[in-house]
């Protein structure tokens, strides 16, 4: 593939040009984060009774809700974004280098948001690290903690390694804010400018990520623990592949959305081209289609539900109060998929349309993940009342807050790190 050749001023524009819209976005994001902090403090001081959560069984509640749906969604986004980036690096798809950079920057933020939702959901958030201190290795969940935590650490290492070359160039060109010089110096420790031969650490890290991700995304853990008999029904079967497809869908859709916004804000039509965005769009659509198939299999077999569920849970959710929400979630995934595929088929492209359907797709998957979680906990097998749940204002504040926090992180990265990649071929970067 050819290496995109861009004028440097175009690529450094996000670092140098700051318009009113940027400050407005930062202001809105800060307000939303304050709302999230308010929600968290309220839950800390008054308990989870302020949320819509309750115990299933005699209390007729649902113990997991929007926070767990959001946790899955953000974790999926982190997995998908880093996987997309790794695919671009490993297969040296130079045209998609700028998308890979977005994925790298997005991944740690998404994992952090995911972690925050776990913290919000815990009855004792101050004890969150008990999962590390007392890690019971016989528990499949412990291995999820280890593997997801490991991927989070790898994502940060991967980010640092992959931005060092651009960072080095921009830092020495004096484009980056001088106030952060100690940070840049630390990030560039041991970097000598790169040499033009062989595959660099970035390639190998990307390859490791690609090998690691199917394991994290529900592959190895159910394979190893499945035969042990006692399980909680969520390890194995179709869950692993579905989570992987969902992750790739959310990751690529988010990268597509961010790329669209960047292109609009900084006229980066030559970086995020019609062709590349259209192709990434159809890639997203194909993944979304695969995800939907997985979801249908989960619903059909009832494996989306916890072990306490009525054997007829699939019929119950299709016929119950959640049915309209299910169809809404399906529509929110299917309609964008059709749009993105049609763009490729007809050779047309709309930036606004692509950004909007990517956003709708993201909401659709979030909705689906939450629906699957809640629906699977609503209908007990024993003679308890069916559970009831509708997210409270505090759970919404949490979700809006983490979304704003990730946006805020990206806005900060936009002004402090090489957000738009100035490099293309990894082969030039053996010591990065």
């Amino acid at each position, binding site marked *: 593939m050819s290496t995109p050749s861009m004028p440097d001023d175009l690529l450094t524009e996000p670092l140098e040009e700051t318009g009113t819209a940027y400050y407005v976005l930062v202001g809105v994001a800060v307000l939303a984060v304050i709302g999230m902090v308010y929600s968290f403090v309220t839950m800390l001081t008054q*308990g989870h009774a302020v949320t819509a959560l309750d115990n299933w069984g005699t209390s007729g509640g649902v113990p997991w809700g929007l926070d767990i749906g959001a946790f899955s969604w953000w974790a999926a986004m982190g997995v998908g974004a880093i996987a997309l980036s790794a695919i671009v690096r490993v297969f040296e798809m130079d045209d998609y280098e700028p998308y890979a950079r977005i994925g790298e920057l997005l991944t740690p933020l998404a994992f952090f948001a995911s972690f925050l939702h776990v913290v919000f959901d*815990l009855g004792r958030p101050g*004890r969150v690290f008990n999962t590390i201190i007392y890690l019971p290795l016989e*528990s*499949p*969940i*412990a291995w999820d903690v280890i593997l997801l935590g490991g991927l989070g650490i790898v994502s940060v290492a991967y980010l640092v390694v992959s931005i060092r070359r651009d960072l080095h160039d921009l830092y020495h060109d004096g484009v980056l804010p001088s106030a952060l010089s100690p940070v840049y110096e630390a990030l560039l420790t041991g970097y000598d400018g790169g040499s033009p031969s062989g595959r660099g650490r970035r390639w190998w890290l990307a390859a490791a990520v690609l090998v690691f991700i199917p394991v994290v995304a529900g592959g190895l853990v159910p394979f190893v623990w499945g035969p042990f008999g006692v399980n909680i029904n969520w390890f194995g079967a179709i869950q692993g592949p579905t989570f992987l497809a969902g992750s790739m869908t959310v990751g690529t859709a988010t990268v597509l959305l961010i790329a669209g916004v960047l292109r609009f804000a900084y006229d980066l039509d030559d970086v995020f081209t019609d062709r590349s965005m259209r192709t990434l769009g159809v890639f997203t659509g194909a993944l979304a289609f695969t995800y939907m198939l997985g979801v249908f299999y989960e619903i059909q077999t009832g494996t989306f539900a916890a072990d306490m569920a009525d054997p007829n849970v699939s019929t119950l959710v299709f016929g119950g109060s959640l049915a309209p929400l299910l169809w809404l979630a399906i529509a929110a995934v299917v309609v964008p998929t059709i749009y993105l595929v049609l763009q490729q088929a007809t050779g047309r492209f709309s930036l606004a349309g692509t950004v909007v359907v990517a956003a709708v797709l993201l909401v659709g998957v979030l909705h689906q993940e939450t629906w699957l979680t809640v629906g699977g906990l609503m209908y007990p097998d024993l003679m308890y009342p069916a559970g009831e749940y509708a997210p409270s204002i505090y759970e919404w504040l949490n979700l809006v807050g983490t979304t704003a926090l990730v946006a805020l992180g990206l806005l900060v990265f936009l002004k402090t790190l090489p957000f738009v990649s100035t490099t293309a071929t990894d082969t030039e970067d053996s010591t990065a």
Partner: protein
Amino acid sequence: MTQLGMVIDVERCYGCRACMEACKVENSTPRGAFWMHVFRYEEGEHPDTSQINMPRPCQHCSEPSCASACPTGARFKREDDGIVLTDYDRCIGCRYCEIGCPYGVNYAQFQDPEEAQYGHGAGGSAGDDMFGDDSAGSVSDELGEEDPGTGKPPWHDPIHDQEFEPRGTRMSGPQPEGVMGKCTFCVHRQDADDRDEQGTTACAQTCPVDAIKFGDLEDPDSEPRRHLREKNSTSTFKLLEDRGTEPNVIYVGNEPGEDARAIESAETFKDPEEAIEAEQNPPESRSTNVEVDQ
């Protein structure tokens, strides 16, 4: 090896729910939490219907899926006697045990345990503060306690403050806010110095028809095993055995059939907030004023 468990005779149980009440008093569980629950259900078609009552404590499984799900090991099976316990000092309140258990016996404490207790906020109107503070007319005064207002409300039984083996942490009674709790087979009794307390649970002791037999299921001479022998012509079952959890509560009687339907509606199980509201502002339909024609 000891495995404490229960044999519950569904044929004897007549649904008085004294076991539920005894459990609440013994363990001071808050509103909405029923460590012992009685399923009251109906089977058959009118007019040939029958009502059955089935008490449901924690099943203290030999392969507890709640413990498998716990990401911190806070939920664990005690090797000495097979009781499944929650380490209140380690639990993070993720509710994974509640998700992993198919029996619905787990309760997360979603608010301050005191605020969730019966009678909270009832003071004021009658001057009888249920929480034993120093105000005049408190329950402590009514009871003539010598040292009222020690900061421990009447529902708080100090016996639950003790630390239990094998970890030396709190595991019995009402759990703190944000932590999981469930039936402990009255672990404070099993670990009591008083031998009369050992081998008993509040629910079994209170049952007026002796439908709940508690003891070591591994011991052929234990009360539950003897009861099983006495009723060897009656069918027995365990709840949701197909889940592979190997429960240690054995029911004597017929297993609930496909058409078994709960008698209570969801409204029966009011959540704590609704219960508090109902207590403080009883609906007119609950009025006890009865006009009697002279």
